[in-house]
């Protein structure tokens, strides 16, 4: 592992907390037909991070893939005790395909941790997490944090089929109440999801909701949140160039105080207030 020139610089009292590091790959294995789990050997300064934050990955150049910009990827897991940083990713195009070619012992240059993660406020005891597809990758570390903070967590996980439902065992092992929904079993439609959430609300109550990855789920949670006055957060995506706030490439629009404002997903986000988010 080679920690590059980016040492922390206490000189001007600046928060020099972003690091660029060449990490060795411990493993990079498919978990199903679409997703792969990448495990990096990471130094402790990279692992001082929080759920919802992300890293900017410098994809390797291969014969067929020539990605130029870095690619943003949420932290799937971070384990300071083992010195491991995990990413769960879907091979989407050039950059992720290039990462897919890397094997144990190869190096990957990562920049981070970046952005603002999820909050778990002290009075949020009953947490609800609703995710679809690869959104689960972003929400998974929240489960670990919820357990560390001794909070109750229910995870509604939705996907096309059982086969694509990632992380169910991971969640269950952390004591999460998991509710799987699939298109295949016709359980993932939005009305059924609403009914399930209303039931949870009536039984135990919900103090906060978290989501990522689906416009329909965003709309549903916004409507439930408004009706029952439940706060929530959402992790959003946008094309990025710098990943650290300089270029203004990654803005999205948000509703705030009756106005529409632009915020940078890489800097003010990727986690935002659920009610302020505007779907696409």
């Amino acid at each position: 592992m080679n920690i590059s020139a980016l040492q922390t610089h206490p000189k001007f009292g600046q928060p020099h907390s972003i690091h660029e590091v060449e990490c060795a790959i411990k493993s990079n294995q498919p978990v199903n037909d679409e997703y792969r789990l990448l495990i990096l050997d990471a130094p402790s300064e990279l692992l001082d991070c929080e759920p919802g934050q992300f890293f900017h990955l410098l994809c390797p150049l291969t014969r067929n893939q020539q990605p130029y910009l870095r690619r943003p990827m949420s932290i799937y897991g971070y384990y300071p005790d083992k010195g491991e940083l995990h990413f769960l990713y879907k091979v989407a195009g050039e950059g992720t395909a290039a990462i897919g070619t890397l094997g144990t012992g190869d190096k990957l240059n990562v920049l981070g941790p970046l952005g603002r993660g999820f909050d778990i406020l002290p009075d949020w005891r009953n947490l609800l997490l609703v995710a679809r597809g690869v959104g689960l990758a972003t929400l998974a570390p929240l489960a670990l944090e919820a357990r560390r903070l001794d909070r109750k967590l229910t995870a509604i996980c939705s996907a096309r089929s059982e086969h694509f439902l990632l992380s169910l065992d991971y969640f269950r092992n952390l004591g999460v109440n998991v509710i799987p929904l699939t298109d295949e079993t016709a359980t993932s439609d939005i009305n059924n999801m609403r009914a399930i959430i209303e039931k949870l609300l009536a039984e135990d109550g919900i103090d906060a909701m978290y989501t990522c990855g689906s416009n329909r789920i965003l709309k549903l949670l916004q409507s439930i949140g408004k009706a029952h006055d439940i706060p929530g957060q959402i992790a959003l995506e946008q094309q990025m160039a710098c990943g650290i706030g300089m270029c203004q490439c990654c803005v999205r629009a948000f509703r705030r105080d009756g106005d529409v404002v632009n915020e940078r997903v890489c800097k003010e986000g990727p986690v935002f207030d659920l009610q302020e988010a505007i779907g696409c």
Partner: protein
Amino acid sequence: MLDLTTQIGSLTLKNPIMPASGTFSEDLAQVFDLGALGAHVTKTVTREKRSGNPTPRVCEVRGSMLNSIGIPSKGIEAFKAAVIPFYARYDAPLVVSISAGSTDEFATLCEEVSVPGVAAVEVNISCPNIEEDGKAFAMRPSTTEAVMRKLRDATDLPLWAKLTPNTGETTEVAKAAAETGADALVVSNTLLAMAIDIKTRRPKLGNLMGGLSGPAFKPIALRMAYQCAKSVEIPVIGCGGISSVEDVIEYLIAGCAAVQVGTATFIEPAIMVRMIDELNTYLQSQGLSSVAELVGSIEDEQASDGLIFMEAAP
């Protein structure tokens, strides 16, 4: 002791490497000590608040990128309150980049940013001029002259004119800027370009077209910087596609007194610090003692050495 300093008019920079406007902000202080740089150049600021162009604002092209950020701006008041004080802690000179849609508005803004803490004003005359049907000021010598004259009257600070590659009159524009009071030229801004998604048949940028930057753009910007350095007496600051110390050196040899690094910082945030280090090593390896010895050292006399080369070949 190697002398990395370089002179841009009345300003002495401790080294010739600085960021390009729009690819640098206070956020980079979280990565390295910004005090290492030759100067600090802010994102272009406008007088009024602006939100910029629709998304997606960026796309990748082979070995480079296109952007259509537009010029989102917090407005000059917010800028003065937050940005200028931030850079006061560093001794690197602060260069504020400004833009406006008319000559008068440009002059007013220039006056407004000429405050203590600002060492020079970089005028981004690559933006559309509303008085001229949206053509950028720096596309033609006449509009360049008109705006530079007004700007010259508006401030005593050094004025850096940032030129556009979207013109067929590079040297004429450069001369016009130099003759009307520019203290230095920055060559150049991005090249108008386009990319299309073949699945959706839609342009990849929300604004349809955008600016090409990064390595693919370097030979064009280097050519322009060379042409400008040949045709004006004022210092030229090279900008475009610089992503290694070799690129920096090429620009210096071509006649640039300093360089600006843009897109490369997105790929490697501390690349400018590495370049400063490597420039030191290069000078040493060449037996040079200063950057000044390198600047404009290009051997470009039209020599008839084609034959000599062939004779020398084994």
